[in-house]
């Protein structure tokens, strides 16, 4: 198998790519190395931390659990592709506004899982949000602000005007 090269066609963030990859190349490495999309992170490479989460054909997928060749023909969205020009996606805005990140290493994966969750249900309960991001570990925040970020984004996506932490008055 060593040295065998396969051709894949993958659409990433709306751009079509035709690339030569080795059969064992993981999707996450394809994104990071072939396409230089380093916003998708690697925290474990064993499917446990969720830092590598991207959206493949509408579903949140841990891109370290998938080979690039398995994504042949698929349409993929990464964190670099969710903003609309300079306008942040509501989920990105939520994480920005509600202090949903500290070191930020989990953030791209969290954002992608949250987008997938909200696209299915834009008014999730707190329990549903926690369930939806259960596959994404965060070692910094304790998740509370992440949950609020998703709630903020949900409100925004429902057309309500959410309240962010930066407007709050401290006690």
């Amino acid at each position, binding site marked *: 198998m060593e040295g065998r090269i396969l051709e894949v066609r993958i659409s990433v963030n709306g751009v079509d790519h035709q690339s030569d990859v080795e059969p064992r190349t993981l999707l996450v490495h394809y994104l990071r190395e072939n396409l230089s999309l380093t916003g998708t992170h690697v925290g474990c490479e064993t499917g446990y931390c969720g830092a590598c989460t991207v959206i493949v054909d509408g579903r949140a997928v841990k891109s370290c659990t998938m080979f690039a060749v398995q994504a042949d023909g698929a349409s993929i969205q990464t964190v670099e592709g969710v903003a609309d020009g300079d306008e942040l996606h509501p989920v990105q805005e939520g994480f920005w506004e509600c202090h949903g*990140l*500290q*070191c930020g290493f*989990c953030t791209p994966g969290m954002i992608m899982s949250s987008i997938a969750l909200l696209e299915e249900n834009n008014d999730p309960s707190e329990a549903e949000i926690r369930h939806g991001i259960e596959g994404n570990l965060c070692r*910094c925040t*304790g998740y*509370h602000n992440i949950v609020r970020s998703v709630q903020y984004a949900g409100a925004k996506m429902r057309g309500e005007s959410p309240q962010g*932490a930066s407007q709050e008055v401290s006690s």
Partner: protein
Amino acid sequence: MTVGTNAVKRDAHDKVVGAAHYPGDLAASDALVAKVVFSNEPHARMVSMDLSAALDVRGVVEIVTAADIPMNEYGLTMFDQPVLIGVDSTSRSKVPSDVSRWEADHVAVVIAETDAAALTGARAIDITWEQLPLAPDIDSADDAAVLIHPENGLSSNTYYQFKIRKGDMNAGWALADVVVEGSYTLPHQEHAYLQPEAAVAYVDEEDRITVQIAGQWTHEDQEQIAHALDVPLDTIRVIYPAIGGAFGGREDMTLQIVMAAAVRKLHARGIDRQVRALWNREESIVGHHKRHRAQITARWGATREGKIVAVEAAAALDAGAYNYTSNKVLANLHLSLTGPYDIPNVQVDSRAVYTTSVPGGAFRGFGGPQGSFVTEMQMNKVAEALGMDPFAIRLANVLHDGDDYVTQRPMPDGVSIETVLERCAEAATWESPMTDPAQVTPIKTLGVSRSVSTGRGMACALKNVGFSMGFPERCEADVTLSGDDEIEAAHIAHAGADVGQGAHTAFLQMTAEAVGISLDRVTGTFSDTATSGDSGSASASRMTFMSGNSILGAAEEALKAWNDGDRPAMGHFRYVPPPTEPIDDATGEGWPIFAFGYVAEVVDVAVDTETGHIRVGTAWCAIDVGKAINPALIRGQVEGAIAQAHGYTLSERLAVVDGRTLNPTLSGYLVPGARDLPDKIETVLIEVPDPIGPWGARGMAEMPFIPYAPAIMAAIHDATGVWFDSFPLTPDRVLEGLGRLAASE
């Protein structure tokens, strides 16, 4: 007013769009790959190492060994660890280079064109080892005939000790109406920052060997590299890009020195290509230090009225194979064995012991969690023995302004533990506990089980701010003001590390405040030894305190220059806090600490006595932060600290057996997920100004971690009547403790 507002983190935008660059995102496409080879030997002497087959592997460019390290030693507070283990060292270090004392000791760095070639090269290195006896834990290291560091001239593996001798123990025991004894075992904890170790290194445009890495103290990394390579300090440059969490786990060296050595060796051969390195999760967990294991015994005496009159304690800290910061961690643990209490008669003996296991080192709390666990367990047990309220007994014993610390010198002013306890009790309605125990169902999906017992517990702590014990503390800042008539913009240059906590945002806020302009007019250059003076590390809950004082000084200098007509106007300042002193070897007397932070917590838990599952309902945390520079970021620190303490107490079980880490994966070592945490964390921020803190600010990021474990244990005792003196309390251990499962080995 900028200080006191919830400014959004300056790096948040880049982080939400995927544009922030961590050390693993920086390498040029033609970078060479460095693979660090671990010894995989907890204790063995290298007899020979043959590189010939490895050098023949196609794509292998170079291999760095001990022979390439002129001063083959490093260590944050003691040079006791070889950079590379090898037989051909010509180093002047007195640390023998040919002995591996830890499975993750480094033996070589293979530099290759590709990851695959580097890995093949690493596997082709042929090493012969002579096994040495193991001493993998404190007990075996205590009676082992084997000395792990014979070069230190000591006759045992115990290499660092502290004592406290205060008052008269016989008089204390004579006053005691009750005596409570306990023996506690504290577990390892893994940092599990989400970003595994990574670095790129190269020679920069000014011929400096440059390492870009995630660390906690750029200038210390620079010094450690320069020491080992025996080169002038200014030939080394260290830069921190975005850092994916640290928590103390990046305070010591991992890739810093070996990457610099790799670049240096290539440069000497005329190869000036970038070199990159990346550890996988297993290498990360095996390859860096942990929160220390410890064994601690304590014996407390109290009067019927609840006054603690005698404390005797003995602590042994498993330092592992190398010191790292163990001697400093030990100092903190030692002093926290009497907590925030005024106790007249005290005898404490603490020691650090070398073992052939993973080194212990810095981790949020830095010895405080271990020492305070014992103190708070003892306090709660004494309360039980006397039939006293845990809140009341604390109030009867806490320190106040003007009291002496256990080191028999006055406490730094601003002692607020009484207020902190009161505010915590008030928030948690301690007087009428457990309003809604149904909230704390152990397994939510199963509904309320009949076997659920609920309980509530309390604990508190103090934690020193800053390097203590006579360390020459300092922190530098440079502020530049520009404009014509009015100050239009300010720039802050600071080396302090933003490990995710938001330090750089706080620096910008404090600069805006000190200069008197709005936050959007302030920019910064951070974490680069080439552009800033030494800041000291992002650790010891010191960064806001120290940087704030340095910024205040630099802003004042810059404003003076501005008023003298300078354009741009520059100010440099080096803040030095009141000097501390080491404690006396025989008595523990001295003035070791210049500032403290104070914290108290109450937790409600439910224990399912059938399954052993524990669920935390609400955790209240009252914390004195002096002045909240950015309340939202501070709340984030409280929540993050509690999440880590939750894992420490209930799920994070690192199996280190015979010097080997058996579960170095995130599937085997369970850090809490979004559904595991307390249902609610209620943070009460208190602002009792620290007289020498910037705007009154105290350090705070470690403190909320500390009381959590003992508060949980008190709540479980309240629920079940059983005291758990060791943890993590995984369900099997809970059932064992409740007598529902035979004790396992």
